[in-house]
């Protein structure tokens, strides 16, 4: 083979691709003899070796959790999106139906509407609790699996009497619905500061449905998130406080026990320190320059390693002392409350319409429920009446017959 042919196939040769056994052997033989091709091959190999080192990358520690939170969020939003549209469809149908009924029902409306406004409040809570059951029941069940009841939380330093202090890192993730997002947002931040914690990151804004699908829909809801660090011994009191501010949707606790890892590093540091002392002694005894250089470089390596391991320990300590609290807030629609900045005539009109649709739905519901629930009574009554009528008639006939 000519050098030209070899160089053309060098990539395939290096990559173990496509070439036949004979071709590979021919290249082997050529490389053994030809310095020029050999150099080209070596250079290519070195470059590829260097490239392969670029595969080592470091992801931020919170990347995974952030990703999972984003997915959870988008899940919830899609559910509400469908739920909303479902409501609108039902609403429209109800309006048509109601148009027919309303004329007939108009005289008794005032009394019934007052009665049904209580029903609205009641119904919404039931509706909320079910959380679009038809949409994705399996998903919500599985989300619940990650929830942790307070009893399941590990006790505060159960091994406190031990020489080794336990190193447990706790993260809590919570999702909360609230009717006044700004108030809740501020309350949580104040509480975090009050117990000696701090807010690492917070964000509030409008969230658009269907963002990831890039759909046409532009419906928005208000959304906020708070990422806070609170002293571990205050974690339970803070989460309990947060729970009291709204409707808890999800709560999950994630604990990582770093005890073994921590004391392993601790032991390594001790060893390195012993080594450092030894090296310093050697340094004092060293006579020639080359020895001094060697010892100095080793010393700086040991020193660097001690520093880096100590930073690791401090970072674990910090994470143990300060638990992470991740809170997602969502403003739920409350038909009695309108956002101040959105208060326009159209907004009011829209709310008015929604309110009335809700009333009509509830009016229809209560009518149907009333009718159905009294059906047995009505049937019994009718049967009773029929029987009495039949008996009267019968006795009447009998009497008339007797008279004849």
């Amino acid at each position: 083979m000519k050098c030209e042919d070899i160089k053309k196939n060098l990539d395939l040769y290096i990559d173990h691709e496509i070439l036949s056994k004979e071709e590979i052997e021919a290249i082997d033989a050529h490389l053994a003899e030809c310095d020029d091709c050999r150099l080209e091959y070596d250079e290519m190999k070195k470059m590829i070796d260097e490239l392969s080192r670029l595969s080592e990358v470091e992801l931020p520690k919170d990347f995974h959790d952030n990703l999972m939170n984003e997915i959870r969020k988008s899940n919830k939003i899609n559910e509400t999106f469908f739920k909303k549209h479902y409501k609108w469809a039902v609403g429209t149908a109800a309006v048509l139906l109601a148009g027919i009924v309303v004329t007939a029902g108009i005289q008794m409306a005032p009394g019934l509407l007052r009665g049904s406004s209580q029903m609205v409040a009641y119904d919404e809570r039931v509706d909320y609790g079910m959380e679009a059951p038809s949409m994705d029941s399996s998903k919500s069940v599985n989300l619940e699996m990650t929830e942790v009841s307070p009893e399941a939380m590990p006790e505060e330093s159960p091994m406190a009497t031990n020489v080794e202090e336990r190193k447990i890192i706790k993260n809590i993730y919570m999702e909360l619905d609230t009717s006044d997002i700004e108030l809740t947002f501020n309350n949580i931040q104040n509480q975090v500061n009050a117990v000696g914690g701090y807010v690492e990151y917070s964000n509030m804004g409008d969230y658009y449905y269907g963002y990831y699908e890039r759909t046409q829909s532009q419906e928005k809801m208000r959304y906020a998130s708070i990422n806070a660090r609170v002293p571990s011994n205050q974690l339970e009191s803070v989460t309990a406080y947060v729970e009291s501010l709204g409707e808890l949707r999800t709560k999950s606790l994630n604990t990582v026990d770093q005890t073994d890892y921590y004391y392993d590093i601790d032991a390594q540091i001790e060893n390195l320190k012993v080594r450092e002392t030894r090296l310093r002694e050697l340094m004092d005894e060293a006579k020639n320059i080359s020895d001094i250089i060697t010892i100095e470089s080793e010393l700086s390596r040991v020193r660097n390693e001690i520093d880096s391991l100590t930073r690791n320990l401090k970072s674990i300590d910090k994470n143990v002392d300060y638990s992470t609290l991740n809170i997602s807030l969502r403003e739920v629609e409350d038909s009695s409350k309108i956002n101040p900045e959105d208060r326009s005539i159209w907004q009011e009109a829209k709310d008015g319409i929604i309110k009335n649709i809700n009333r009509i739905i509830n009016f229809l519901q209560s009518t149907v429920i009333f009718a159905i629930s009294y059906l047995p009574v009505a049937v019994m009554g009718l049967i009773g009446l029929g029987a009495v009528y039949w008996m009267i008639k019968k006795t009447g006939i009998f009497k008339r017959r007797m008279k004849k």
Partner: protein
Amino acid sequence: MSEMDIFLIKKCVDGDFKSFEQLIVKYEKNAFAIALRYLGNYDDALDVTQEALIKVYKNIKNFRFESSFTTWLYRIVINTSKDFLKKNNKEKIISIEDHSIDLPDDRERENPVKNAENKELKLIVEEALMALNEENRIVVLLKDIQGFTYDEISDVLQIPIGTVRSRISRGRAMLKNELMKQNPDILNLIG
């Protein structure tokens, strides 16, 4: 594709969130490495990787078991990266701080002088890689950084094997050229 992956994917399709987590955690790092080496910017790569993996979640019900899951996943990562570059339509200037992602490996621990040299070398290679056009960069990245076979690259990028082969040749030649521009003796420093 492993039995375990198939099992997890099926559970995801049924809406099991935990299975998705179990599945995705294995591929996060590689997905990020691809985005990072393709985009050349750490923060952008984080955003793009997250966006891509959310897409994976949302589209997992559309996954056909004909191709491998990793191929499919990395294709989404690459396409999301491409979209990002198109949207931003600007070549990122690589700055030394936000581009060097260093994990000390054994070679670096051996001695501090060599360590500094290696760091320098790594940066030069990173910059040279970013100097390639997107087409050649992605094949070199998948072949020499991620260690894919020609078949896998052909699958991920959906181009014929012949094209994979010629792009790898061209990409490597161009990369070598870029490295020589930095330092004609550079390849003798390696190894």
